[in-house]
């Protein structure tokens, strides 16, 4: 099911046209104004090294790509950053694949890497094609802007002949139309209500677990989570258990991989665990939203 390897097109010329501006010293400057997205940056880096997109010298490009991401620090918007990370992760995979001994590729993981590479290149080639054609469209628009259409009122002798205008709507409809036109056009919003998931607090779940385990001493994870309202709560409860484990309040036992997970209450120093002022719990507050989202994505 390996994707058909992309043919090595002769693309160098095309890439060079979209090369980013390099500074006079030959040093490489990156600005968000120059690179609008990860594909844009990657194309720029490839062009800078005059590499054929399909004949990789990935180590260079990968290193610079990652250096670029690091250089940007905290100024990313989340959406853009995640796109960059996907590309960076793929590039790292590819770089790893370069270290594999050449020859027969039998291993499933190797195949997966090749597939990832082909997919990334396919996307890059696709993006580059649109970038190219956008250049053509811009040239056409510039050319077209030099031709002015005739928009001149009709000679009076004909204008007088024009039949009465038919508006085709009444005063109320006219006002409705005006309202629509005069309403500022908001960017369309993606409704997110349907993916909203109630939060589950790790701290609450910890308190609940402590109470329960104190009573019964030992239980399976399955039974401890059997009353959860949803994935998000199971996740929160799991995190709470990890936290309790770190504190030494519980211990785990799993006889075989993927088998039942037993949780046992170890009654040493129990007072501290349920303490509401515990700092580590404060940290976990932040994870609540994150985990809830993660859980939704998995469903």
């Amino acid at each position: 099911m390996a994707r058909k390897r992309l043919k090595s097109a002769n693309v160098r010329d095309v890439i060079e046209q979209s090369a980013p501006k390099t500074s006079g010293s030959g040093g490489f400057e990156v600005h968000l104004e120059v690179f609008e997205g990860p594909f844009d940056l990657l194309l720029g880096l490839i062009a800078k090294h005059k590499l054929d997109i399909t004949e990789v010298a990935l180590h260079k490009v990968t290193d610079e790509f990652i250096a670029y991401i690091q250089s940007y620090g905290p100024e990313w918007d989340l959406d853009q950053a995640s796109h960059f990370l996907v590309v960076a992760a793929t590039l790292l995979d590819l770089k790893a694949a370069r270290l594999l001994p050449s020859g027969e590729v039998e291993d499933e993981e190797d195949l997966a890497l090749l597939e990832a590479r082909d997919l990334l290149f396919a996307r890059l080639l696709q993006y580059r094609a649109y970038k190219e054609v956008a250049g053509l469209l811009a040239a056409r628009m510039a050319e077209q802007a030099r031709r002015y259409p005739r928009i001149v009122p009709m000679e009076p002798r004909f204008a007088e002949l024009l039949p009465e205008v038919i508006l085709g709507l009444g005063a109320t409809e006219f006002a409705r139309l005006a309202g629509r036109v005069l309403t500022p056009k908001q960017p369309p919003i993606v409704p997110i209500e349907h993916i909203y998931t109630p939060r589950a607090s790790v701290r609450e779940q910890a308190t609940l677990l402590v109470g329960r385990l104190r009573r019964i001493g030992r239980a399976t994870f399955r039974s401890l989570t059997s009353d959860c309202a949803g994935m998000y709560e199971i996740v929160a409860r799991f995190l709470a258990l990890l936290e309790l484990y770190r504190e030494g309040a519980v211990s785990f036992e799993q006889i075989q991989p993927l088998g039942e997970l037993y949780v046992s209450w170890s009654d040493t120093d129990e007072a501290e665990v349920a303490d509401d002022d515990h700092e580590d719990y404060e940290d976990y507050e932040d994870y609540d939203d994150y985990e809830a989202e993660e859980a939704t994505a998995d469903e």
Partner: protein
Amino acid sequence: MSDDELPPLRAAIEAILLVVDEPIAEVTLAQVLERPREEVGAALRELSAEYTEQGRGFDLREVAGGWRFYTRDNCAAVVERFVLDGQQTRLTQAALETMAVVAYRQPVTRARVSAVRGVNCDGVMRTLVLRGLVEEMGTEQETGATLYRTTSYFLERLGLRDLDELPELAPFLPDDVENIEDGR
């Protein structure tokens, strides 16, 4: 504008005549094209004679001190038929929307109407003026831009006695929009 960029004089004249709204004087053309008035006048007469000779459907004539393209007389019947054909009766959606902005924001400049609609509406505005639905009313003090308002023919077509009878806009606007729009 350097000389080698310039089209031949006759082509330059034709291009300008194609886009001007009203008759243009020989002397104005001469100034813009930086050529002697006699040369420009001669070119105009040459062109006019050529159109007649080639039997073109348009004609170049000097009327009341200005030159302009007109339809040739023997084509008037065809143009009349086209005008009466009814293609021109109904306003386009763009024209209706432009008129709506003028009606509720008058007096208003074309630039502002374009800003509200998000597209250039100069051509549409001319059509509305031509159809007698909108008219000029002086200029904006700061910018010198022409201001437009709706006409009594507009009211008539909409079945209203005066502008006060235009339905309130508020029910058709989301809250606060009036202010947002005016802030631009």
